[in-house]
């Protein structure tokens, strides 16, 4: 196994506040690493640094061995880092099929093409991928539905479908079950496990639901006040006294 993503001494300061403090995180090919930590621990900042929504203060981020700190967010996506958002970040006024179609265009055509006079019919490979994406998240029958009219759980599935259409090698999942009913949560967990197995995805999961984290993770990294205070298998992390102290508050698990 080799590291697909490494952060090297990553620091992010907002004014006087250090949101990410010298983080050295390494994600191995094919694993599911969960990032946990109390509110304000810097999880979102770390995700935003990796996706290049934020500019780091210091340090380096390497993806597949190459630094990505000079790239734009869409270039990072083109390299193979996908992201699924905390809220169902979809294109509400477009149909489900069009939602998947956009993702397929980004995947098949790269970040830009000068093809505004070419009919969409001339790209069967894009249509093919659109269909595959819809199949993968089980929304093919709803493809003509306006995305805004889907039930919340289906919106989140569509969201994940959009993130997957570009066939990322690393998927960042920001609280994929936030706001879901228990049934929807269960379905999403199954989807994550299935994705990891079938697509050989590497996943970085940010999640608050400890039950999910401890059941699906290969490894867990615990972030507190911008620093990683523990890292290891679920068992190791669970037993770590500093984690219990800082985050779990001594709750028996």
């Amino acid at each position, binding site marked *: 196994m080799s590291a697909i993503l490494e952060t090297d001494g990553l620091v992010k300061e907002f004014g006087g506040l250090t949101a990410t403090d010298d983080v050295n995180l390494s994600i191995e090919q094919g694993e599911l690493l969960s990032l946990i930590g109390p509110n304000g621990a810097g999880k979102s900042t770390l995700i935003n640094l990796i996706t290049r929504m934020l500019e780091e203060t210091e340090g380096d981020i390497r993806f597949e061995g190459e630094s990505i700190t000079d790239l734009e967010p869409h270039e990072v996506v083109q390299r193979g880092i996908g992201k699924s958002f905390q809220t169902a970040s979809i294109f509400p006024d477009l149909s489900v099929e069009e939602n998947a179609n956009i993702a397929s265009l980004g995947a098949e055509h790269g970040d830009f093409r000068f093809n505004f*006079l070419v009919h969409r019919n001339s790209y069967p490979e894009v249509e093919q991928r659109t269909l595959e994406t819809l199949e993968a998240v089980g929304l093919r029958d709803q493809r003509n539905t306006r995305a805004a009219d889907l039930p919340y759980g289906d919106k989140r599935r569509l969201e994940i479908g959009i993130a997957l259409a570009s066939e990322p090698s690393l998927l960042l999942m920001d609280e994929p079950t936030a706001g879901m009913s228990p049934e929807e949560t269960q379905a999403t967990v199954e989807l994550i496990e299935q994705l990891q197995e079938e697509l050989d995805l590497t996943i970085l999961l940010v999640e608050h639901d400890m039950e999910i984290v401890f059941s699906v993770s290969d490894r867990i990294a615990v972030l507190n006040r911008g620093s990683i205070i523990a890292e290891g298998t679920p068992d190791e992390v669970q037993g770590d006294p500093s984690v219990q102290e800082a985050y779990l508050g001594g709750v028996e698990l």
Partner: protein
Amino acid sequence: MSDEVKSAEATESGEVDRSPSLYDRWAAVREHEAAVAALTFLGVFLAPLVLVVLPEMLGVPTQYIWYRSLIVLALIWGIFAVGYDLLLGFTGLLSFGHAIFWGTAAYAAGIFSANVTGSPIAMILVGTTTAVLFAWVIGWISLRRGGIYFAILTLAFGQMIYYVFLSPLGWLTGGENGFTGVEVEPLLGFLPLGAEVAVVPDAIVQTWMYVFVGLAAVLAVVVGNRILNSPYGVVLRAIRENEQRAEFVGLNVWRYKLMAFVISGAFAGVAGSLYVIQRSFVPIENTLNWTVSGEIVIMTVLGGVGSLFGPLLGAGLYMYVANIVSGMPAIGDFWHMILGLVFVLVVVLLPEGLWGGLTWLRERAAEAFGGEDR
């Protein structure tokens, strides 16, 4: 438009057992590009018959009805509005500077006609190229900011260019008098635009000017429709809906926005050149003045943002109020207020504009004829 394409397809493939109703068949036809072209062609070239000849025959007093050159003017503004809607309605970018592209194209075409050749087609090429260059530079700078800042930047550029053309470049542009030396030559060298078309009945086109502008308008709709059916059609709407997500499927959102800006600038350029060809004069107040940037927003919103044909209707309604209602006895002097009232009524009652209203009517009709409800 394009989501309707898919539902039409779904009707064909998904529900084989159900014989398609008249409305479904009509809907399927309507979405083919050739059908869009043919319908636009019919609409454009039947307009004089419907708007001028028929009302005259019915005895409507002439001061209340359209005249031919006004239809030409409305078509020219319609071309402008179709392009503007690609930016406002489909990409979700509100520009307050589109007078720049309409106006610089008008000046370029006019000055070119005075100094090089007055061939209408060459004038359009020169005008449109100028507009595209301006759009590229101004878009490149303005699109670094979003929302209200983008709108203000485009407005600021518009004012800058207006004053530069008004005074420092007055020796070239004619300053506040406008550029008067426009020399329009016959189309293709032998068809004077003002001359009557010999073969076609007078009721339909009358002059070559109408044919020329009418064909340009049809072409504008056809190109606009193709853009909406190209990958840009979904990408631009995706940017309007959720820019961040579009970035996160790996699309270079900024470059697509710039392309939308430049494409709408090109439409404005074609329209601005045609405007000069029609008027044989470049009035600065009707080309580079910031009010033009406002008028195009009003026309597009009146007609219906996010629709292909709506902006044409909006341009028509605006032209009617500004040129016919303004000449009506008693109420004519209040035409600005009437336009304002019409605008408020449309925005409040028909948030999707005139075209949205027509779509609503069509859907009600579809229900009545047993078509698929959508």
